């Protein structure tokens, strides 16, 4: 167990498992938010379901822990990686040996983190803790719930918020481009047949997440 947190393989395993957990979360998060395109009722009901579901309450601290582990070990590994080559090459051509995203995972992750902080201020704290005043209420089929829809649609009427959210989605997509297959490789899933397949799935997943999260602000901006 001690080796898990200290050996390079163990630390990479923590990155992989926390990353895969975040990957699952972000997909669920996207599917929920795509309901915004369906309409206020579908979205509000889904938000209500999430807010009242005990399993989701249980998962919230787990999700926070997932982020914390991921970020702490990303920092440890990135610092170690930098120490591993004290003197940099004068001329470097890594175009054939690694992707741009893979070389900039910490920068991309850091920018995603800044975006997440803004995102929490915009939505999470307002929906969850009523920061900035309680949300208006709506009643569907006799059940009273928060009307979260105008909060989102209103924010994206501000063009620069829409732009920031599209940039956030693109940064996340770039991070994810190197994530899914790398996480699976860490778990041992790699050979010359699997590698191209997994890498393509990774790219597809990144494109879905990037486009999915971009459509929402663009939709509200132009509608």
């Amino acid at each position, binding site marked *: 167990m001690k080796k898990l947190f200290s050996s390079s393989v163990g630390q990479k395993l923590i990155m992989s498992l926390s990353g895969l957990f975040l990957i699952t979360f972000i997909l669920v998060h996207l599917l929920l938010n795509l309901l915004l395109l369906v309409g206020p009722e579908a979205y509000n009901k889904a938000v209500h379901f999430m807010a009242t579901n005990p399993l989701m309450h249980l998962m919230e601290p787990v999700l926070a822990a997932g982020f914390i582990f991921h970020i702490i070990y990303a920092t440890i590994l990135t610092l170690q*990686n930098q120490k591993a080559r004290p003197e940099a*090459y*004068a001329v470097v051509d*890594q175009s054939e040996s*690694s992707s741009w995203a893979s070389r900039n995972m910490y920068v991309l992750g850091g920018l995603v983190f800044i975006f997440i902080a803004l995102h929490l201020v915009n939505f999470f704290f307002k929906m969850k803790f009523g920061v900035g005043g309680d949300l208006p209420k709506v009643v569907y089929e006799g059940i009273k719930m928060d009307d979260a829809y105008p909060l989102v649609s209103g924010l994206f009427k501000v063009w620069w918020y829409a732009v920031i959210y599209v940039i956030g989605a693109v940064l996340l997509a770039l991070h994810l481009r190197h994530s899914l297959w790398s996480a699976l490789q860490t778990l041992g899933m790699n050979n010359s047949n699997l590698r191209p397949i997994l890498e393509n799935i990774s790219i597809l997943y990144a494109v879905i997440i990037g486009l999915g999260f971009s459509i929402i602000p663009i939709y509200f901006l132009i509608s």
Partner: protein
Amino acid sequence: MNLTLKIWRQENEKAQGKFVTYEVKDISPDSSFLEMLDILNEQLVNKIQLPIAFDHDCREGICGMCSLYINGRAHGPDEGITTCQLHMRKFSDGDIITIEPWRSRGFPIIKDLMVNRDAFDNIMQSGGYISVNTGGIPDANSIPISKENSDLSMDAAACIGCGACVATCKNSSAMLFVSAKVSQFALLPQGRTEAKIISNIARMNREFLCANFS
């Protein structure tokens, strides 16, 4: 071909290194990269200057001694080869070529372009266990190894320990080398014959309640 070479020169591990620019003229496109450096070294020696230190041994792509980081790539611009198999036809007349040593904390520079790759030997020794008996060649069938395992092990043994993976990896990781060696060794019963003997001795000690002090 006439070329401009920017070569890393460093007196020893502790010294501060720097790039020095050299011009070489009339190099045949058919000469190898190391031959081109030989020509440069000959010129330096003739001018009573210190030749450039670089590693090489077999010059036929099997030993893994040659190790140059050329224009930003380990073993240069060609695919799937070692530096000694790189030929000047891969370059054009008038090119500027930057030549650096492998750069990694695990590979300290000995001199100029030569690095110390002891780390690789230490890794191999840490996982291995063999006894080296003097005398005649051991009988070929004394340790049976299945054909399948020996083939897979030989595949992994294609790693010649050149260090290009460490030099190339953006994180300077030796994972590729270590995985090749783990596969190569783990598929062989290496050490297990000795391990058996050790367990035999342990058993003897238990059976006869005595230690073997010989």
